[in-house]
């Protein structure tokens, strides 16, 4: 054994969104402590929404996150529409799903190429890859660009959407623009294959820790907006029962809350959606999963990177199908009028990093009385914490040195694609 005592401290982990620290202590060859501490400054969105007009809430809550602002906006919209009995027109529902696809595509591409891949090829960031793997970086940028192009066309811009409103979508995209978006998406199918080929050359660490995976499931389509809350341990609950699904608690060393369900912790995200909804993926996505030997239920957190790639295949193909449907529609009717009504409901959506809940209570004047937001990364934090301990123990048993252990630990945190400011909203 090379090392019996070591202390690993990663202050403000890089290539993740937000501020988090890793602390690992090994004494006499035994793991004493492994901690994932979120030190992000909280913003108190649940307080900010109080007294605000329902109409304004999605514009506020989208600011919870710079990467998944569309998901936050739609989670608030769904909760408030359910609370006040508003039914948006079918064309608006399709546009919203398309917007979700755009956001997840750009987010997954950002994560795979900019944040995760540098670890696998041992570079500090993506810049050296511009020289060494130009066609890979270009493919990544085109995929990310296609995701942003969807969001921009459907919601007005790619961060902090402008046209997602209570009652529907305030402005429908022009058909000519939908057609050119379709062509752009058709063209990036090749980039997906280039990415898959490249990813198949990466060495995914072999690490397995049995985990419960939580996601939405509606039984008809791969999940995005609304549905039942399910877990791979067999839990199934109604969307409004989100508190029984999350069981938040607070520990001293971290500013985010932790969650649990049937075990000490659970995971949300691409791998969780995949594990619960494999049967609802498009055939192109199922095919690429098979190429990587990815089958439900997979318990290796590093495979979340591959599950994201599988979802990119699903999204690109599903977005093309959605655009074809929208081109058949008149798109004249994308918004309904509504009146404030007293009520309360949960809106659950699958943000890129996993299941996201917004709960809102409104009074009869349409002012928010109470709000609650439970973020995917909050749900993953406890699982990351437990993974770190198990991974450090395994690496120690394999005789890895400090530097190797530190690198593996950083990688496993990044594999979850944590969105830390989001989790400390």
């Amino acid at each position, binding site marked *: 054994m090379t090392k019996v005592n070591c202390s690993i401290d990663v202050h403000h982990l*890089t290539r993740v969104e937000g501020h988090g620290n890793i602390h690992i202590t090994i004494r006499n060859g035994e793991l004493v402590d492994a901690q994932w501490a979120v030190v992000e400054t909280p913003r108190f969105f649940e*307080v900010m929404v109080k007294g605000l007009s329902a109409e*304004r809430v999605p514009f506020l809550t989208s600011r919870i996150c710079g*990467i998944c602002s569309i998901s936050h906006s739609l989670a608030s919209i769904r909760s408030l529409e359910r609370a006040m009995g508003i039914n948006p027109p079918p064309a608006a529902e399709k546009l919203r799903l398309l917007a979700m696809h755009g956001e997840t595509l750009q987010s997954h591409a950002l994560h795979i190429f900019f944040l995760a891949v540098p670890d696998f090829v041992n570079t500090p960031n993506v810049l050296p890859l*511009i020289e060494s793997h130009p066609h890979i970086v270009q493919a990544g*940028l085109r995929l990310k660009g296609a995701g942003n192009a969807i969001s921009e066309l459907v919601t007005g811009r790619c961060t902090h959407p*402008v046209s997602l409103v209570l009652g529907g979508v305030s*402005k429908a995209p022009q058909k000519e623009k939908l057609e050119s978006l379709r062509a752009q998406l058709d063209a990036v199918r090749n980039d997906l294959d280039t990415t898959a080929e490249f990813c198949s050359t990466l060495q995914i660490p072999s690490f397995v820790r049995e985990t419960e995976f939580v996601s939405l499931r509606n039984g008809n389509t791969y999940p995005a907006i609304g549905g039942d809350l399910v877990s791979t341990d067999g839990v199934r609950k109604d969307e409004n029962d989100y508190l029984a699904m999350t069981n938040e608690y607070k520990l001293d060393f971290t500013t985010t809350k932790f969650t649990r369900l049937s075990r000490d912790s659970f995971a949300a995200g691409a791998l969780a959606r995949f594990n619960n909804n494999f049967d609802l993926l498009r055939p192109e996505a199922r095919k690429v999963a098979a190429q990587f030997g990815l089958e439900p239920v997979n318990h290796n957190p590093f495979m979340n990177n591959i599950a994201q790639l599988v979802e990119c295949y699903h999204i690109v193909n599903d977005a093309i199908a959605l655009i074809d449907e929208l081109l058949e529609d008149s798109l004249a009717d994308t918004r309904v009028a509504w009146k404030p009504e007293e009520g309360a409901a949960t809106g659950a959506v699958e943000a890129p990093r996993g299941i996201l809940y917004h709960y809102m209570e409104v009074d009869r004047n349409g002012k928010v009385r109470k709000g609650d937001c439970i973020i995917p990364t909050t749900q993953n934090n406890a699982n990351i914490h437990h993974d770190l301990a198990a991974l450090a123990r395994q690496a120690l048993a394999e005789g890895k040195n400090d530097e190797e252990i530190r690198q593996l630990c950083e990688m496993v945190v990044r594999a979850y694609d944590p969105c830390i400011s989001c989790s400390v909203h």
Partner: protein
Amino acid sequence: MQHLGFSNEKLKVGSFDFTCCEGCQLQLANGESTLPEFLELLDIRNFREISSERHDDYDIALVEGSITRDDEVERLQTIRKNAKILIAYGSCACFGGVNSLKNRFPVEECVREVYGDSPVETRPVRRISDIVKVDFSIPGCPVSKSEVERIVVSIATGAMISLPKYPVCVECKQQLNTCLFDLGKVCLGPITRAGCDAVCTTGKTPCLGCRGPAEDANYTSFRQLVREHGLGMDELDEKLAFYNCFGEMRDDES
């Protein structure tokens, strides 16, 4: 880098985030087709979200977010010492932004509402310029990438830097949009600084004023406009408070 025949070393840039959504720094990674070229102009010394390299010497510090904790004050002061030029970018950095909606409630109530009895440190939201000297402000929620790029390149080459002085209304009219006041909405376009290309109003969503006041905004006649359209003053006040950047108008009238 060559610019107007002027040759320079690569500009050393650091990006730093405080209390915010980090959406502004993400804008810098967007615009995929120009990204490698933009990065080519810069020597990135510190950009935690995309790179694990860190250095503490930089010409320009891009600072995003508002200040809500004491450790942030210290970190910001260090950044100010290290940087030749400090740019506050995004509405949170420039005005406090949406985070300031928290300031409507006492700090103890905020903590109790979200964390129950567990103590969590937080203070009322402050702007970057409340703590250190800011050389330049680029407002927006989020900022526009092209504006940030233009300003960073201008600094590198010693060119003049300015933001549009006229209101969003001008940009909105150029797009031939139907006025949202005529659709019965209170829109802050007439008093908000342009430069966003009227993205919200073009999407048929009223302007909430994320870029702050236009120069010489006429608040009295704006209030009159809202009244003439028979629209609610409550709605107006809620919108003016959204990004915390129209304090002068609210003070004016109260």
